[in-house]
């Protein structure tokens, strides 16, 4: 029989609430060798150290695993090359200096002001279409990031449903575990997404505009950095889907948290200036990305635990960001202390992220 498992992320009760599992891990085995051999980390300080130490811990464990898997299956006569092609330039799977270079190009092409206007206009449009009673996740949180990225990247609005479908398909490549059936689906979505983007890049090269894709192409030309079509396809795929699930999770669990904490909800409603802090606090309290992966680049020791070269580390951001007192169900929108402890994620591509499991996918009406 299976032994008692500290790490059991697929159990229903842990999906519904992983924080008790995290807490037990943090107390009993903060650097835990899981049944599948990877090390699961739950302490804030350990996770911060690993994320900051890019010399000893590299990003890209999902990409490396999928590359090995695709090679293995190729020898069995199965072709999943589209999956590795789609992933070849995912920024979160990259390491310095390539990561630094791509990040700089995206940041120069990215215009916060333009993006804010697009987001605001999309929010207005969605709220107008929502009516008095609506499903927050399905009718608002899910369409918002896809509509936004479609506009930021200059693609036709009519393609939005197709793009949502293929982006959601490719996103599964970042799941913690991938089955053969998952690979079949990711492969199909990757092919469709790349075919579409190939035509789109042809069009944009002939008709450059002020959209993000044209600006990235221009950045490469101005800096005289060679970039292949294959790389551009992958860069575009990742940009499109990067904020998709994280945004849905943040909006859904953020409002859910507020509804469960009526005093905090009232405080925010009566003082909208608290909003920025509230978003940070929501990111910390219910991390939209629960797990990220790293690979050890050499043999080393972390807090007395021996780590071997090529060991995979699963970093639980969800655990790290919920410090002990938060287990008492405390959130505090006015706390500035929290801001210094939160491991930031999405806004600036600061840390590589990996999908954990979709805890927040259930939708509900409000």
């Amino acid at each position, binding site marked *: 029989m*299976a032994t008692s498992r500290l790490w059991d992320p697929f159990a229903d009760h842990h999906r519904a609430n992983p924080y008790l599992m995290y807490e037990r891990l943090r107390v009993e085995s903060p650097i835990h060798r899981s049944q*599948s051999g990877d090390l699961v980390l739950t302490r804030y300080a350990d996770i911060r150290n690993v994320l900051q130490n890019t010399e000893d811990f590299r990003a890209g464990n999902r990409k490396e695993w999928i590359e090995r898997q695709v090679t293995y*299956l190729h020898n069995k006569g199965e072709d999943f090359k589209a999956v590795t092609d789609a992933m070849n330039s995912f920024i979160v799977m990259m390491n310095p200096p390539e990561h630094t270079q791509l990040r700089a190009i995206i940041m120069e092409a990215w215009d916060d002001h333009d993006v804010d206007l697009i987001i605001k206009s999309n929010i207005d449009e969605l709220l107008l279409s929502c009516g008095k009673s609506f499903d927050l996740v399905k009718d608002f949180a899910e369409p918002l990031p896809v509509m936004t990225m479609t506009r930021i990247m200059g693609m036709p609005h009519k393609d939005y449903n197709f793009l949502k479908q293929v982006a959601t398909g490719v996103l599964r490549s970042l799941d913690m*575990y991938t089955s*053969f059936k998952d690979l079949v689906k990711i492969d199909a979505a990757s092919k469709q997404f790349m075919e579409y983007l190939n035509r789109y890049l042809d069009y944009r090269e002939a008709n450059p505009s002020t959209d993000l894709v044209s600006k990235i192409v221009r950045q490469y030309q101005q800096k005289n950095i060679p970039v292949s079509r294959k790389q551009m396809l992958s860069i575009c795929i990742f940009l499109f889907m990067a904020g998709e699930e994280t945004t849905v999770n943040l909006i859904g669990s953020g409002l859910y948290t507020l509804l469960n904490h009526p005093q905090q909800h009232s405080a925010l409603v009566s003082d909208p200036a608290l909003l920025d802090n509230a978003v940070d606090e929501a990111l910390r309290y219910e991390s939209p990305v629960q797990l990220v992966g790293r690979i050890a680049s050499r043999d080393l020791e972390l807090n007395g635990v021996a780590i071997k070269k090529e060991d995979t580390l699963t970093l639980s951001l969800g655990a790290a960001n919920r410090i002990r007192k938060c287990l008492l169900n405390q959130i505090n929108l006015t706390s500035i202390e929290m801001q210094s402890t939160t491991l930031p994620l999405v806004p600036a591509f600061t840390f590589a992220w990996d999908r954990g499991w979709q805890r927040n996918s259930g939708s509900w009406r409000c």
Partner: protein
Amino acid sequence: MKPVELDEIITFLKQVIARETKLDVNKIEVDQHLGVFGLDSINSVYVLQQLEDFLQLELSPLLFWDYPTIKSLSIHLYQLKNNGNEQALGSIR
């Protein structure tokens, strides 16, 4: 659906693991840790798929690690298949 006997599951597992790891099927012991045969995070995906097809069940990606011998795995799968005891794995995906 036709019930599957425990022996059938054991025989199937031995054959499929032998094929993937290129070992003689007679060398596959039911009490040995699967890792000893060379089952790893890469080839286990293919083995799991064949097992799902054989049993017509959706199985946990952590299955081989949670039940790390052919014996424990077969008993678990037998119960899962024949007793409809799918609760533990009910929402793997």
